[in-house]
């Protein structure tokens, strides 16, 4: 074997060394690319991804600053998403701190487009690349859309090392794809959050099924209405959830098939790709209840088509209708009674030859009946005012005793009425009230006591309780049961006395409550050992002068 001359030997060695180093250099770039890929593959929060990517590239490219701008999907404007300084890391007692090489950078937060970004980087000595996503539309057409722009600032007066420049060029497509993906993930998350908020918030039941009639989505309202599946239960078919039409067996073996039979509106809409609106139907909830609903069905196109149903529970509507109906009936009756009294007395006045005393009495009774009518009409008017919240209180300051005295003549006036005892101290603080409305409340309460309060005496009393005046109407009647105590003030509520035959519109206590509350007070049933007592509070009128403490 011939020995190679020494100088050739070392030259060869040197050459081999250079080749080897070049190869290692190449491998270094590949590794840098690999690390970036690994980072991108982990996905995650877009701002975090952007920050990490820039940190890597700043380090790999020996840059002093890096920044990334992204275009909102569909727009050309590039917004700054992240920027990172380069610099040496120094390990100290408190951990590693970074000292920046050079001054902090001020980068534009926005570019009109990639062209503007490129201009800026050129003018300021940065090195940048566009991140664009390309789609081959076929027939030689490539659709390029800008995803973003990434730029690095080399050390002052310099340029990025060739490796850094090369790395940027190598990774730009992968960066475009990754950031595009992150943006889409963000947008998807937002859409899902919006959809969930809508579905959770609506009162109507929403049910979505796929083309095999498997229920794919129910909102909370649907779960409540239909007693439907909780999240982890197995998927139901629309038949199981809603009681859609029976499934026709496809084969003779009697096995259930998923392609459905008549009566399922989902199927109708899916096969016809149509919509059905205002279907009034009865659905069968999972616990066997039949629920009347007004439903709308829509076709949901796509690779796996389906249908969505929106169901409105009609039971609430119907019960309100019923209440209105019975209310109207009761009101009509309430109005008729005094009216018939009036017509009766008028007839007898005209037809009969009564002596002046009898005539006077009849006219008085007509007056009372008319007053009662007037009260009822006021009540009705107040009711409409409540609905439209245009109550219009006329408040003025007065002593409660004045109001009570004013009504004293009407309370317990008519024959057959039981006596009403009034116990209102005259030294009670003044209240600021609408005398007519509060008078209405009082006469309503006393009226109830007359009607339902048994035989004993009726007492109207008042007392002071801190910053309020409390008025109580007490009777010795049957009392109010504990569970009725809150309900009696509900609209349309008629208590057991009503059910036992005494008619009433059920409005009286509701109106009292609204009027008292409009004054800033409360009304409630006191617990009494004998009979019932209803109390309401009125705030004491604020005094105009406040006394100042001496020396304060």
């Amino acid at each position, binding site marked *: 074997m011939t020995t190679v001359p020494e100088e050739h030997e070392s030259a060869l060695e040197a050459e081999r060394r250079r080749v080897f180093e070049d190869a290692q250099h190449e491998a*270094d770039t590949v590794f840098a690319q690999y690390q970036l890929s690994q980072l991108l593959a982990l996905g995650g929060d877009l701002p975090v991804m952007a920050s990490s990517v820039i940190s890597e590239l700043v380090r790999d490219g020996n840059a002093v600053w890096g920044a990334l701008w992204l275009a909102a999907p569909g727009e050309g404007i590039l917004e700054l998403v992240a920027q990172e300084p380069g610099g040496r890391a120094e390990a100290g007692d408190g951990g590693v701190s970074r000292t920046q090489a050079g001054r902090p950078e001020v980068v534009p937060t926005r570019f009109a487009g990639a062209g503007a970004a490129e201009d800026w980087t050129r003018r300021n000595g940065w090195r940048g690349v566009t991140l664009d996503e390309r789609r081959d539309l076929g027939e030689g057409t490539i659709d390029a859309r800008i995803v973003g722009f990434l730029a690095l600032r080399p050390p002052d007066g310099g340029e990025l090392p060739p490796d850094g420049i090369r790395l940027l060029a190598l990774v730009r497509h992968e960066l475009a794809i990754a950031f595009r993906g992150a943006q889409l993930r963000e947008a998807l998350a937002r859409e899902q959050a919006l959809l969930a908020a809508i579905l959770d918030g609506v009162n109507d039941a929403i049910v979505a099924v796929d083309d095999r009639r498997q229920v794919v989505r129910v909102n909370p309202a649907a779960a409540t209405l239909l007693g439907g599946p909780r999240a982890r239960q197995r998927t139901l078919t629309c038949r199981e959830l809603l009681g859609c039409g029976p499934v026709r067996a496809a084969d003779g073996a009697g096995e259930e098939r998923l392609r459905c039979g008549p009566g399922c509106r989902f199927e109708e809409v899916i096969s016809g790709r149509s919509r059905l609106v205002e279907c009034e139907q009865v659905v069968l909830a999972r616990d066997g209840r039949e629920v009347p609903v007004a439903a709308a069905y829509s076709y949901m196109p796509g690779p796996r088509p389906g249908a969505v149903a929106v169901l409105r529970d009609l039971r609430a509507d119907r019960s309100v209708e019923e209440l209105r109906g019975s209310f109207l009936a009761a009101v009509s009756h309430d109005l008729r009674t005094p009216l018939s009294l009036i017509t009766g007395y008028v007839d007898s006045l005209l037809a009969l030859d009564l002596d002046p005393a009898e005539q006077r009495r009849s006219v008085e009774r007509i007056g009372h009946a008319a007053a009662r009518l007037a009260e009822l009409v006021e009540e009705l008017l107040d009711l409409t005012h409540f609905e439209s919240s245009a109550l219009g209180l006329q408040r003025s300051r007065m002593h409660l005793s004045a109001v009570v005295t004013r009504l004293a003549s009407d309370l317990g006036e008519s024959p057959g009425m039981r006596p009403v005892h009034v116990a209102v101290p005259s030294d009670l603080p003044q209240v600021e009230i609408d005398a007519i409305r509060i008078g209405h409340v009082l006469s309503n309460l006393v009226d109830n006591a007359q009607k339902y309060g048994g035989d004993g005496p009726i007492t109207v009393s008042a007392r002071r309780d801190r910053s309020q005046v409390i008025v109580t109407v007490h009777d010795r009647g049957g009392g109010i049961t504990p569970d009725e105590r809150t309900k009696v003030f509900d609209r349309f509520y008629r208590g057991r006395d009503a059910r036992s035959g005494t008619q009433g519109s059920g409005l009286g206590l509701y109106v009292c409550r609204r009027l008292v509350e409009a004054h800033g007070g409360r009304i409630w049933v006191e617990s009494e050992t004998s009979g019932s007592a209803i109390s309401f509070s009125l705030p004491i009128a604020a005094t105009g002068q406040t006394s100042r403490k001496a020396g304060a």
Partner: protein
Amino acid sequence: MSIRTGDDHDVVEPFVTAPADRPGPVDGARQALAGGIDDVGVTVADVTAFLVRAERILVRHRRLLDRLDAKLGDGDHGENMTVGFAHTIRTLDGGDADPDVGDMLRRVGHLLVAGVGGAGGSLYGTAFIEAGLAVAGATMLTAADMARALDAAARGLARRGRCELGDKTILDSMRPAVDAFRAGVEAGEPAPASLCRAAYAALAGMRSTTPLVARRGLALRLGERSRGHQDPGATSCFLLVRAMLGRAPGSAA
């Protein structure tokens, strides 16, 4: 000697309690001195023995490495290292009897690049390749040779990973270990004692990564959240240095 693992962030020092039947690092150094050997004389057989010990130690700590990596990266550093070292040993087994240590180290490096997944393959691979180049042609390494090779390894790893001390990487364990070894050798210590120093330095370096904020690698994306977790790469590096102790095949692992 086995390394007991405490919680996730702790690798307990093995040197404190050395079982009596196995030579501790200090005993080994005494033995080497007693035998009149002032140079270690690392041969290809020693490299093979090291690989075997390394694989064993990595296997024993595989789950720890995976757990550490799960906190900072993607949770597979332990698996990657064990698979890669096993592959390397298998491939080299029964290979040609070329006594060139430098060449063997280089081949080990290439096998690690190919066989160890994640960033670790490329980084450790480069370390071994550069070490091999530094001692190309040598059939028996002196302590000085080892120092040169280790230094080249650390520099190669720093170049490949573009990492610096304090970035929370393998380097934070490797560089102190290499420096400690060189300091020992330059002070005239025999290689085993210097290796002992290196192992302690690697241990300290590994632990020093815990409070750091990651500036390289997957943990980079965690930012501040990477604090408080020991770096898996620095941990595997300590384990490898630890595996260098004990020269004879079958000795303490």
